[in-house]
């Protein structure tokens, strides 16, 4: 089962005040716990960052890294800005973890150390969640 999570909505429901920024470890923890309750038994999750402003390292670690470490095998990130990407990438590298970003048009970009990223792509293909194009790109399999 693939679970879709709207991170902005999770933020609104987890933290008092109407904030758009994922900052501070306390907020990251609250949002992750909210997401974990939504995930139930899902091992593949689509996490949509649309509407999220600033993302700091503490939140990237609490949400993306800890979900990958403890709850899901595959994390597909949507709505990720360049600034989000710049924060998430070093956090994943620090943990030796990989995730994929869905780009407009459905192509996938891996984040994280190359070995972990390659293993993740193999898993996506094996699960029929993604396919390799003749040009070498990896795209989401139409559902």
């Amino acid at each position, binding site marked *: 089962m693939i679970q879709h999570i709207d991170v902005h909505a999770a933020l609104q429901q987890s933290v008092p005040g109407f904030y758009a920024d994922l900052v501070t*470890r306390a907020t990251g923890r609250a949002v992750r716990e909210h997401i974990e309750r939504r995930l139930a038994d899902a091992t593949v999750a689509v996490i949509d960052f649309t509407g999220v402003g*600033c993302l700091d390292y503490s939140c990237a670690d609490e949400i993306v890294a800890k979900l990958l470490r403890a709850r899901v095998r595959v994390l597909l990130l949507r709505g990720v800005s360049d600034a989000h990407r710049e924060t998430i990438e070093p956090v994943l590298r620090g*943990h030796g973890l990989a995730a994929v970003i869905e780009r407009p048009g459905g192509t996938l970009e891996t984040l994280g150390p190359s070995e972990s990223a390659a293993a993740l792509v193999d898993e996506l293909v094996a699960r029929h969640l993604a396919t390799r194009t003749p040009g070498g790109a990896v795209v989401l399999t139409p559902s």
Partner: protein
Amino acid sequence: MTRLVEVPSQFDDRTFDQFTAAFAQAISDGERLLFDAHAAEWASPYGLVGLLAAGQAAGRGRGEPPLLTAPTNADVLRYWGRMGFFQQAASLFEIHGRYPKAKPQPESDVLLPVTPVQAAQDVHEVVSRIQERAAAILRTVGLDPKATMGFAMALSEACQNIVEHASTGGWVAVQTYHWRRRLARQVVVIAVADAGVGFRHTLEATESRRFADRWGDAAALEAALIQGVSRFRDPGRGQGLKGIRNYLARWEGKIAIRSGTARIAIVPKWDDDAALKDGLPLFPGAQVLIIVPEQGSAKP
């Protein structure tokens, strides 16, 4: 009896240790302190939040607050008021002299007035407020609008050091100004200060053995800023300062952190600051200075 601590007439990171030397000497005998700022001609955001931290430390555990004589120069008073200094100082000091009591109005060069930071909620407020104005202001220093998020991230991480490690509250201020004397360029400055436990105390349990005889304030700062060490064993910890460094490296920025008796800096090529200073006068907590200079203009 009252001990006098003179506030330097030009009060910024360069003169801060002149101030801390007077502070360390005056506070050692347990008397009430009088911070004399009457002759102040200028104070940077770093000077202002540092003065609040000194007031916080001087009032701790004492029945009466320290004294503060306000600047007499009208322009200086206006500026300190505009920065929101007196709003925060009123709860820490017994202030002598006339000073503006009105709430600071939004000003073009004050990105964020002196703002207290105690909890995660405060960091959210700071990051939200800065983004309302940051994109426009950062453009004036030639930063790509995309740099706004990185700037907010750096601000968030700097403030979180207070929330996570200081064991007390602190203050942050952000301002842009033309740094004529040193750089002849526009700069954006983040200043964060607290009078909490400091980096050495925070890292003592996990790092002191590794550094052995070298352990002290300087080693603690080196561990935190250069090695990205945190008191938590979790590999995801300690990324914040590293993230700030990466952001500043891209924009030729500077970070300096003073804690206890030491000060460490990542020094860009436009500056001649020392990378590490040890044996400074003891000052509690941690004081962080982040400078992002105007891009691609006058050669320093």
